[in-house]
């Protein structure tokens, strides 16, 4: 399947889900809960011309943001500090501009929160998931057959919570981080394939990754470290060093506005607006975030186990990705498991991991390629012919498992939308009672 067709089919599925969510009233307006505090910079900067957020607070909320917004007054300065950074607002900006133009055209209230702004932000998240899938297709089709690439993207979209974060909770940060992670991996791979590349593009992506969610900076750090370790002392090292240095400088420049936002509000360059709430590194809930019934990554998206297994059989050109991929997954797991609210509040599956789904995609594709044909794209057909009967039972098993797990994931997502599954703290008894229960 061509890239355009794969992304087109994904777009159809996502738009259908989005229309269903809002036409049936399953969810409130897209800019709600965490999405509010990621988004609020846009109206503050462009409509109220007030980066302190005071004017938005006055207009929306009578001068004080509600506690659920995670926007708090910094004790020593009395100024508003948003716990969520500015990156998502920057990425939404083009959609916001279109929404504002439509607002003026229809004479709606230009308050930053009418239905045009709401769905501008919602559709931005949906679009960024598609952008992420586009980058993943570009990356995977460089190493795997079209069939493997299409199967991987379909499994990722329908077998995990990605579809949920492209539709129901599309204005949360995860759709944006997913796209940026996919773009980073694709650009790093393009560099590795000696495709003409500058560090500026990669630096922009890295800067945005840090701007959307600070802790995701572990992704470029791990991959750059692995790249440096692999190529240090080789003929390619000067080029690679140049790429890493340029990327780091550009990323630092891109991140500067966030530092200014923090400094202006608090008098400090780097802060945590969560106050006493934060990481608890001494008692991480590792088992809970991976396999627990409440939010366990593999409990709610077991198909991702195939993605982890597949990292053992990545094709030779991507073999150096194993160490950084595993390091990212390990560090990310530890960080998420150490967060005071390790469930990350209400979500379908564990939303903390959506950002790194592109890494799982590489593992998934590798496993599919190993079972359905040899990893290298040009050998795909010949290997199928070389091992006609030996792998057939495994292929059937894998096919049936993936289809079943995708169907189960979509069904459970619909259960979540319809309130059959709780938004958090799901117990085994609740899960069993709700299993395959129609709303």
């Amino acid at each position, binding site marked *: 399947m061509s890239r355009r067709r794969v992304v087109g089919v994904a777009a159809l599925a996502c738009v259908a889900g989005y229309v269903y969510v809002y036409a049936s009233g399953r969810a409130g307006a897209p800019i709600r809960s965490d999405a509010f505090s990621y988004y609020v910079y846009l109206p503050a900067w462009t409509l109220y011309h007030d980066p302190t957020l005071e004017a938005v607070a006055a207009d*929306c*909320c009578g001068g004080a943001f509600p506690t659920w917004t995670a926007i708090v007054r910094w004790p020593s300065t009395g100024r508003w500090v948003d716990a969520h950074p500015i990156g998502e607002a920057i990425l939404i900006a083009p959609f916001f501009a279109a929404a504002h133009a439509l607002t003026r055209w229809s004479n*709606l209230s230009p308050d930053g929160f009418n*239905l045009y702004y709401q769905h501008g932000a919602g559709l931005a998240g949906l679009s960024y998931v598609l952008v992420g899938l586009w980058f993943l297709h570009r990356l995977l089709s460089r190493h795997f057959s079209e069939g493997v690439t299409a199967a991987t993207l379909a499994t990722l979209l329908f077998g995990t919570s990605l579809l949920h974060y492209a539709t129901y909770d599309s204005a949360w940060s995860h759709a944006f981080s997913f796209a940026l992670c996919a773009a980073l991996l694709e650009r790093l791979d393009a560099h590795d394939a000696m495709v003409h590349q500058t560090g500026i593009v990669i630096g922009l992506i890295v800067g945005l990754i840090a701007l959307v969610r600070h802790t995701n900076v572990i992704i470029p750090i791990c991959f750059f470290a692995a790249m440096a370790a692999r190529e240090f002392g080789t003929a390619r090292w000067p080029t690679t060093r140049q790429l890493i240095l340029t990327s780091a400088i550009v990323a630092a420049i891109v991140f500067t506005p966030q530092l200014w936002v923090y400094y202006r509000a608090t008098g400090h360059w780097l802060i945590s607006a969560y106050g006493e709430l934060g990481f608890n590194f001494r008692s991480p809930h590792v088992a809970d975030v991976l396999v627990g019934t409440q939010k366990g990554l593999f409990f709610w998206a077991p198909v991702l186990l195939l993605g982890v297994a597949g990292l053992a059989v990545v094709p030779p050109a991507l073999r150096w990705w194993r160490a950084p991929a595993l390091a990212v997954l390990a560090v990310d797991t530890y960080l998420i498991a150490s967060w005071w609210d390790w469930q990350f509040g209400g979500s379908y599956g564990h939303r903390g991991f959506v950002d790194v789904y592109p890494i799982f995609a590489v593992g998934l594709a590798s496993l599919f390629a190993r079972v359905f044909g040899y990893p290298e794209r040009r050998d795909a057909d010949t290997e199928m012919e070389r091992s006609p009967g030996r792998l057939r039972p495994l292929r059937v098993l894998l096919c049936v498992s993936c289809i079943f797990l995708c169907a189960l994931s979509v069904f459970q997502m619909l259960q979540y939308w319809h309130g059959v599954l709780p938004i958090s703290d799901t117990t085994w008894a609740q899960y069993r009672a709700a299993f395959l229960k129609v709303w």
Partner: protein
Amino acid sequence: MVKAAFAFGGVLALLAAIAYLRDPPWLIDVSSGLRPWQQTAAGVRYRWSGGHASFFVPSDARRIGIPIATTFDARGARPMLVTITIDDQRAARLVLNDGAWRRVLIAMPPRGSRRVRRVDIRTNVVREDNRGVQVGEIAIER
């Protein structure tokens, strides 16, 4: 040729959608910053606004009457400045010092090129849980 036809059709559809959105008939039912309808013990229907609420009235209205009130109790008793604008032009401003209902009468500007006019209500303070004023049923004189 087929691609060009699709592109041309797409641009036409987009232009038609934009033209339609200038004055869509459903705008009269659009509001923001207003909670669901409630009823007082005396049978008065109202909706709580937030710090800023917005809704539409027919543009052929000659005058509109907006019943408003707010609460004064231990959780919030500061006087409340309420500003009402019609299509971003200030139309009324009043201070609420007690819990009595007031009816704000606003003479509307002549009918323009749209079917509706936008009414915005802003308060300078809010009560607990981001409640601004209670907005009753709007009376429209044509």
